[in-house]
């Protein structure tokens, strides 16, 4: 940015218009100052002097360029805001909000019935066994456990810890699901989080427990909800609830044992799940008769795309999303086949 | 043209003297002296200023006179070179040497009074001042009069001291060279990392005075400003008590913004 005016200036130095010699009546010739000549002819002594000057300035320029590079961290600022669009946004912001009742109505409309989704995540190719974490061995209390990197866990072709959840937040609920049922337990056990990935509804009780005979802490890096850091002495349990839905899975960690990691999928509705050790999940009482968008997620891959569902019957987009419209009382089986390439 | 240059150079002593006299007339020479020892330093200052002022005026006038007399336009005769005068050289060497020797002896008392540790009052330090980029950290000894115990009172940039009492400041630096400068007390002492340097003085007048750093200590040197409040013993004790109470607070009593 700051180079272009400099460049222009140096251009003037290198190729001065003849008028400019009136302003600069002297030129540097090596170290000596020589009087200028008005209209130098090619090959004249004066022209040679000017050429020498040019090379001197070239060296000076290179030196200065180096200084500039040395002094300035190249700071990226990101794209510049577009003034006209900014004005437009400000105009829309000062206008009163349009009524959104129409949208709310459709969300609350009673569904024609309820359906169940059962599915499995399978990986056909060979995936390397989870590697033991060297860092865990440095801790005397944890050295006796084999702590592995759980970012990809495949057991007998089943992908463990992959998540599926409904993206649309405003979905009707059966009366028995109106309030969250059952508690989720997040256990600090054998120097790892059990479960490694869990699904929790907003308002659902999450019992954070420590089953190890030594202290842990559980750090929940939620974004929409206040982040939390529980200090857990041996055998302690604390309660935690997420008040708001989290757009992205929430990372869970332990500051005492930095390699410990886990994930929480926090959604405003109960329509989601995490695959168990057989790679399977069940989502019950899903509203039927309307299109619902689902998201697939896996720790290593993030949004899980490039998968095939029921042999290509259900189209999955590049963000690991697909839409389903269920019939009442339907029991839909989803066979999600994940190529090893998708887990990167 | 030559006359012009000589007249121009004559302006230097005239303007110089004008500044000196103007400063004197309007009392903008030195900030108000509110310390007991300050007048000896001021006396020295004015003595040396007077002495150098006389030499300055003499030199400038001589310069003018030579320029005026030996102007190129009116001196067309060939220039004659001369070796000079041996006795004159001896004189202009001995006179300044003697003057310097006199000054060095004349100032001995003033120096001893302010800097020599044998003149240091035999009292425990009133306050420990720790210079740090870019602030003054202050630590008062508290009730037991010993610095470094659990009842010390801490403050920053806001130095309070009692009037008409011997004051012993213990100066430290946490990082680089700083200089503890109290213009109204004629005190300027470098703070050197790793050293505890005593400074003593006695204030004669209540008021709020500047405390500044007089050693370029880094990019934030300009913001290293403090203030010194000289107050009566009662008010000073009251202030110390208030600071101590605040420091021992176990509850929010008042809004911080309104009290500090």
């Amino acid at each position, binding site marked *: 940015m700051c180079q272009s005016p400099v460049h222009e200036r140096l251009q003037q130095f290198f190729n001065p218009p003849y008028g400019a010699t009136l302003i600069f009546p002297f030129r540097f010739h090596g170290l000596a100052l020589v009087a200028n000549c008005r209209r130098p002819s090619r090959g004249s002594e004066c022209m040679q002097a000017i050429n020498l000057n040019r090379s001197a300035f070239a060296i000076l320029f290179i030196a200065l360029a180096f200084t500039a590079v040395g002094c300035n961290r190249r700071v990226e600022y990101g794209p510049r805001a577009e003034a006209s669009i900014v004005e437009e946004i400000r105009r829309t*912001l000062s206008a009163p909000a349009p009524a959104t009742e129409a949208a709310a109505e459709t969300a609350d409309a009673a569904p024609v019935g309820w359906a169940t989704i059962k599915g499995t995540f399978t990986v056909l190719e060979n995936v390397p066994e989870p590697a033991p974490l060297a860092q865990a061995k440095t801790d005397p209390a944890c050295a006796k456990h084999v702590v592995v990197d759980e970012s990809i866990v495949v057991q007998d072709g089943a992908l463990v810890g992959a998540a599926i959840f409904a993206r649309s937040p405003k979905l009707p609920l059966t009366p028995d699901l109106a309030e969250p049922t059952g508690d989720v337990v997040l256990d600090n056990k054998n120097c790892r989080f059990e479960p490694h990935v869990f699904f929790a509804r907003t308002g659902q009780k999450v019992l954070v427990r420590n089953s190890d005979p030594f202290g842990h802490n559980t750090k929940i890096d939620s974004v929409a909800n*206040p982040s939390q850091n529980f*200090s*857990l002495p041996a055998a302690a349990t604390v309660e935690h609830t997420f008040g708001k839905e989290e*757009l992205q899975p929430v990372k869970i960690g332990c500051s005492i044992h930095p390699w410990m990691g886990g994930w929480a999928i926090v959604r405003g509705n109960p329509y989601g799940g995490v695959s168990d050790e057989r790679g399977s999940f069940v989502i019950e009482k899903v509203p039927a008769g309307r299109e619902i968008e689902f998201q697939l997620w896996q720790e290593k891959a993030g949004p899980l795309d490039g998968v095939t569902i029921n042999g290509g019957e259900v189209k999955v987009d590049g963000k690991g999303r697909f839409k389903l419209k269920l019939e009442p009382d339907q029991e839909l089986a989803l066979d999600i086949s994940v190529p090893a390439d998708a887990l990167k | 043209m030559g006359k012009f240059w000589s007249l121009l150079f004559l302006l230097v002593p005239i303007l110089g003297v004008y500044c000196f006299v103007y400063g004197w007339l309007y009392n903008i020479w030195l900030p108000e002296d509110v310390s007991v020892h300050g007048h000896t330093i001021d006396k020295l200052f004015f003595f040396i200023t007077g002495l150098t002022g006389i030499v300055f005026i003499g030199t400038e006038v001589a310069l003018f006179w030579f320029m005026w007399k030996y102007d190129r336009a009116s001196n067309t005769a060939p220039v004659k070179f001369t070796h000079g005068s041996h006795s004159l050289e001896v004189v202009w060497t001995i006179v300044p040497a003697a003057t310097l020797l006199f000054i060095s002896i004349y100032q001995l008392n003033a120096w001893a009074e302010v800097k020599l540790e044998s003149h240091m009052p035999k009292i425990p330090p009133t306050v420990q001042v720790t210079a740090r980029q870019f602030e003054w950290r202050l630590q008062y000894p508290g009730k037991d009069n010993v610095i470094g115990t659990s009842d010390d009172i801490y403050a920053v*940039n806001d130095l309070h001291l009692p009037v008409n009492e011997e004051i012993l400041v213990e100066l430290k630096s946490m990082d680089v060279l700083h200089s503890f400068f109290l213009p109204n007390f004629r005190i300027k002492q470098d703070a050197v990392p790793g050293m505890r340097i005593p400074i003593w003085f006695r204030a004669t007048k209540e008021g709020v005075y500047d405390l500044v750093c007089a050693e370029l200590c880094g990019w934030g040197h300009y913001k290293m400003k403090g203030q010194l409040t000289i107050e009566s013993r009662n008010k000073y004790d009251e202030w110390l008590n208030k600071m101590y109470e605040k420091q021992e607070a176990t509850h929010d009593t008042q809004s*911080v*913004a309104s009290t500090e």
Partner: protein
Amino acid sequence: MALAIGCGRSDAPRFKLNLPAMELPPGPILPAQRQEIANALTALFGTPDQPYVVPESGLDLAKIKLAAGPVGSDQAGLHRGLYRQHCGHCHGTTGDGMGPTAAILNPYPRDYRQGKFKYKSTKRDATPTHDDLVRILRQGIMGTAMPSFALLAPSEIDALVEYVKYLGLRGQVELSLIQAAADLGEGENLQLDRALLIDEVLVSEADKWKTASEQIIDPPDRPDVPLAESIAKGRELFYGAAKGNCIKCHGPTALGDGVTTDWDDWNKPLGEQDRDLKLAKTVLAELQQQRSQAATSDAIKELDEQIAAQREDIANRQSLVNMLQSQMLPLRTIMPRNLRLGLYRFGRRPLDLFRRVHEGINGVPMPGGGLTPGFTPEEMWHVVDYVRSLPFESINRVKADPKIAGMSQR
């Protein structure tokens, strides 16, 4: 000189986008969405020279204008540009804690953009109150490069605090928009309307600042126990693994020589990516080792494929780490406080220390006793008393204690 003239005519300063957050998971955010976020942020907050706030932010534009813009006085003699004069060189124009002098400081200056502050009177995750920030400005932070601005006029301190809140809120809104952008489907755009910008994002982020004063920790009265007894009890808790377990990080000597393998939240994204890159490199080395010992041609072929895949993975990670390194300050691990110096960041009042013990310190591993089951406020007061006595406790006492001397430094 030509260069200086050239640079002197550079554009008006502008806010920097949070590019590391846009690059990291759940990103990367696409260029079109980055442009949208830049537009939305400028619409909501203006530029460093021309700040702007919407009423829902709860910020006072008059105060912000006093702190913003270039340094100088206006016609009424009001001093302006306070932030750039006093704060910008460390905390940066954007409030990202990356001003020109930031890299030479330890600890680094605060990055306001997450709305996350360490020293405050409120709950761990809450934002500080206005008074908390005023106090920080007046007192400075001992043990850091943050000096005291006690001699600035109260109105100037007020303006600066408002500006810090403004920069914080701007950064929080940016992070929320990044989350929203990451959640978009393919080919979708952010709807930069009132529903998203104000109702969904700004109001909830601004509420964090507005409700801060409701979340102040007011401790119960200190138990009526003689100080010596309280100190002794605090000492037990400090060394005990059950509740305090302070020695885990602060060390058996309390010199801050315990475990220090973690990063603070501001450094963490870079730390984790850097760690994963190193891990990927060791995996590659292992694979190469295996290949050199492989017997069958099938095994070699398979290993070659794995090695190629691993190399590609490393290249991707390396470019991400390079990008982060160019946009962030050099990585530093956390440093547990040396409690024997008697330097207390947010002040030495028992009240301040109680709040630290009760809530921990946001953004760093220091946990809060208030979130530890079975840790009572009385016990926390004992810990406070012990910590306050630590600078005056002889270190020989610790070294002579057989129970502690035998303790391995984990």
